[in-house]
């Protein structure tokens, strides 16, 4: 069993429900999109904003999950639940973004560092007219799209494709799938439970990587590790490595 097996399955179930409700659109990664860079001055103020996603006062969730099993990923698929940017002009929408990554050899030794690296890429999108603010601890992502970007045709296919392209620059990333949710606060909220589970796993992983103590009896993540076999394997590998290091 891998770290996020349950979350992958629950998100697939969620997408199945959304599809049944006629809310989804499935698109493919568009190769070689040429969207100009904002030269890291991507400030979009309220007056310049055509579409706002995941404002701090609205629902928002942003998740990144990975697996060694590339079959779990529909590579290059961009799924949109709800309206696209061009259909949302003048609106402030709730926002969900889920990134599935299939890679090779994610293991106890590299999972933490790779996660940090992929998180960095996820939040480092320099597209003219697109401003993003995000906090991984809150699992929130807030973005604004300028009027100019809308006039020039910015869409979720472009956003998703730019992200897929950046993530694929990493050699260990073989497949990427992106899901955007803009349909309603309730549809974004439905993903919060999955987000909380994923956050528990990531926090447990972070704690293992950062702390020298492996005293499970006093650890707040004992339930999470009991539930996820891969975390226990990760812990065992780290304990073994530290014992070897300490002679």
């Amino acid at each position, binding site marked *: 069993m891998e770290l996020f097996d349950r979350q992958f399955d629950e998100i697939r179930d969620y997408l199945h429900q959304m599809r049944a409700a006629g809310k989804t659109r499935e698109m493919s990664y568009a190769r070689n999109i040429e969207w100009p860079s904002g030269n890291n*001055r991507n400030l979009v*103020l309220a*007056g310049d904003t055509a579409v706002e996603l995941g404002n701090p006062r609205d629902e928002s969730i942003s998740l990144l999950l990975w697996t060694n099993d590339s079959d779990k990923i529909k590579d290059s698929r961009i799924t949109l639940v709800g309206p696209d940017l061009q259909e949302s002009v003048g609106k402030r929408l709730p926002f969900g973004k889920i990134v599935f990554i299939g890679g090779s050899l994610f293991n106890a030794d590299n999972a933490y560092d790779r996660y940090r690296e992929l998180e960095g890429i996820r939040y480092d999108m320099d597209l003219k007219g697109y401003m993003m*603010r995000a*906090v991984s601890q809150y699992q929130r992502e807030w973005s604004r799209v300028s009027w100019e970007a809308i006039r020039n045709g910015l869409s979720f296919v472009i956003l998703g494709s730019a992200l897929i392209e950046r993530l694929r620059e990493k050699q260990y990333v073989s497949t990427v799938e992106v899901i955007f949710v803009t349909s309603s606060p309730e549809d974004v909220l439905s993903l919060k439970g999955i987000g909380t589970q994923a956050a528990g796993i990531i926090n447990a992983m972070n704690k293992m990587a950062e702390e020298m103590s492996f005293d499970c009896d006093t650890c707040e993540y004992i339930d999470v590790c009991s539930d996820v076999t891969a975390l226990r394997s990760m812990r065992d590998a780290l304990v073994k490595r530290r014992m070897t290091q300490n002679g």
Partner: protein
Amino acid sequence: MANAGLEKTKIIAVCGKGGVGKTSISAAMTKILIDNGGQKVLAIDADPAVGLAISLGVQVRKSIDDIRNDLIGRVQKGEGGDREEVITRLDYEVFDAIEEQHGLAFLAIGRPEKEGCYCQVNSLLKDIMASIASSFDYVIIDGEAGVEQINRRVMERVSHLILVSDTSAKGLHVAQTIKAVSDKAIAYQKAGLILNRIRSEEEKDRLSIMPELNCQGWIPEDDVIRSFDIEGRSILEIPDCPAMGAIRESLWRFGLLPSQEQKKL
């Protein structure tokens, strides 16, 4: 932290003795720069009394001090996270604290930082504010009396230092002190004095102003600006009046605004 664009940003600090009209001048400059069109303007209220917020008709929800205290509280509870996590969270929180209306972006500092305490948090906040400032064309900082902040290097990235004084000897003396301290602490492009609440040209001519203060203009006593101040109305709604004309002229002298002739070209 990406501050690459900061050299393109004009960071204007308005300093002077308390009560000389710094806040009204900061608000008026903000309005003029916004009205100039197409420019992104961030006004920073560095006065704990949030006078600039009132002058610009902004309701402050959250200040930099609130963000700092929240983070310090989390760190004390062991919930701080690593440096990268703290940076992204502060960036998000600071951006959320920006109030936006009528083409204006506004940020309140709240109470000043405590020297020596949590200097890493303060240092990160400075970096993030510099990073956010770099996305704007103009940043106007309305300070407290001024000297303290310059000493704390809060305004070390200022490009234009505008000293404000009334006709009082005390006001001019404070301006001189600020200038002397800033000359050592800030690598600004231009510094100069604006005289405020001048009753006539003769009154201005009678003043003996040290040449190093580099006087860049004078603003007449004006009932329109005074009534807006007394009634607590937003300067963003002020009609054109002699004081606004004089402030516009001063901005032009500081090189912060193109003259009418340059605009036509």
